[in-house]
């Protein structure tokens, strides 16, 4: 008995300060995060916390690391760290939602969706989960899935993201109404009237500029041809220049149309992600 007590006392003597120290260290990491010294926080966690700690400590460390990585837009590692937070942690839901959001931002929509699908939530969190899933479906341009998830969002008792919900619905309509520009149509139009394909792609200024350049070079080539004949060096020079500009403009139009489609999708994705982000910050911060 005496020996057992002595061992217990010695163990306690070492354990109590150790636990106290770890708790203070966690406070310090939180302080680094509050100071927005995110890189230092990540470096410190990776440098000094390689031992095996009790689960709550590990959860806190993973959360702090993930949150700091999220703050510096290192989204992949951030999601990986946040996913290591266990379900026993009070930070579990926040970590899962932000991990899913990080993957959405990185375009890993299936991963993002599966994180949220496997999350068992209720009440406001269920609503948030459905809202995030709607956003992911919209990012994937999956109208059917969007309608299914969006319909499950309950806004009668939960007003926390009414504006964002309306916005998401608006973006859905914009996506549905968007007529994808055809590269073939753009190229054909530019072949018919130089620059018109670019105007079709929504780049009016570029189109007018291209038209003026090609038309002026063409007119100069025609003038030289008319006055000097087809074999004259000047006619060949301006004719070649016109041909290069004419073909180059058609080729450029194909890329302009492709870019215009990409720009629309990118702008839409950014808007959707922004609206997905707001309720997350409002609910968890």
């Amino acid at each position: 008995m005496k020996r057992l007590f002595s061992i217990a006392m010695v163990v306690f003597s070492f354990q109590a300060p150790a636990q106290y120290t770890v708790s203070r260290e966690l406070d310090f990491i939180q302080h680094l995060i509050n100071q927005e010294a995110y890189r230092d926080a990540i470096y410190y966690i990776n440098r000094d916390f390689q031992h095996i700690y009790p689960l709550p400590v590990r959860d806190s460390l993973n959360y702090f690391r993930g949150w700091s990585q999220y703050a510096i837009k290192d989204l992949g590692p951030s999601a990986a760290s946040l996913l290591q937070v266990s379900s026993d942690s009070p930070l579990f839901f926040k970590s899962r939602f932000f991990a899913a959001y990080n993957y959405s931002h990185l375009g890993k929509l299936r991963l993002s969706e599966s994180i949220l699908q496997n999350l068992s939530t209720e009440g406001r969190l269920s609503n948030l989960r459905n809202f995030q899933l709607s956003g992911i479906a919209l990012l994937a341009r999956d109208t059917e899935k969007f309608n299914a998830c969006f319909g499950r969002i309950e806004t009668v008792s939960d007003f926390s993201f009414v504006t964002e919900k309306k916005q998401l619905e608006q973006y859905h309509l914009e996506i549905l109404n968007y007529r994808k520009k055809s590269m073939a149509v753009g190229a054909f139009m530019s072949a018919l009237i130089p620059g018109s394909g670019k105007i079709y792609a929504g780049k009016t200024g570029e189109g007018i500029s291209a038209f003026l350049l090609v038309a002026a070079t063409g007119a100069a080539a025609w003038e030289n041809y008319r006055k000097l004949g087809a074999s004259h060096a000047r006619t060949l020079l301006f004719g070649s220049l016109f041909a290069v500009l004419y073909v180059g403009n058609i080729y450029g139009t194909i890329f302009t149309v492709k870019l215009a489609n990409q720009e629309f999708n990118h702008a839409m994705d950014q808007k959707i992600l922004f609206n997905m982000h707001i309720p997350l910050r409002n609910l968890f911060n």
Partner: protein
Amino acid sequence: MQWIKKYCLTCIFLSAIFLTNGFSQEGIFDVPDSLTAAGQYRDARIELEKIFFFSNNQQVKTLALIRKAACFKAEHHFQEACETLNRIFPAHQPDSLLFEIKYEKALACYLNEDPGQATVELLSLQNLPVNNEQTARMTFLAALSYAGLQNWEESKKAASRFITLTVSEPQKLERIHSQIDSLFAEKNLPVILSEKKAKNLSSIIPGGGQFYAGKIGEGLFSLGLHAALAWFGISEFLDKFYVTGYTAGFGLLQRLYTGNLQRVQDLVKEANKNRIENFLEAYIAVLTSATEQP
């Protein structure tokens, strides 16, 4: 009972070790200072932030932040150095420390290319009791900060004061004073060129802005190119090649002309920057020569 007392004493002993390790302020900066000396600035910064966080002593906290700012400074992260020093609440600091805080802040601002803020910090030091060495540091920085603001008069005043404080040898003092006088003579001060004037000159005579900025070769080339395109356009018109003259002559001329107007403004900016940099280089060389031992 005896063994309970014995083990309780053991616990008190172990706790005492822990508390001594955790909170002793004796040699508290040894670790971060050695890390700084070894060039491990990030580790040093973290240790210093830890000291700031765990210490209850206001002075220790202040010293930790000053050291942390020095680490940022060594890493050339001057903005972060300023931000770290801004975390110090000056009202509770003793005068001796207040000088260091404000001086370091002024230095970090100057290095962060903000001579205006550096001057503001230096002006706030004027009412503090300072010794000769501190005044010398202050006036040196003031001379550079005012020069950065192109306030030559104040810069010269600060430089003269710095030299008087630093140089004891009369001959050397006279020599450096005359160097400063020569440097600040009107003909030697950097003349700041006007972007608007350069643009106007180039509008009237293409290449004129380049001549004004001191780029004679580029000015001549620009003038020649403009003239050649104008000549080509006119000659095409005279030969009744109207479209060719308009497109290849005047069309290109118009593009060249508008591009040239932007180009001269960039040239003037660059010329002004070089002039100030050259002046400051010569100025710093004179000021630092005051501190050199014979």
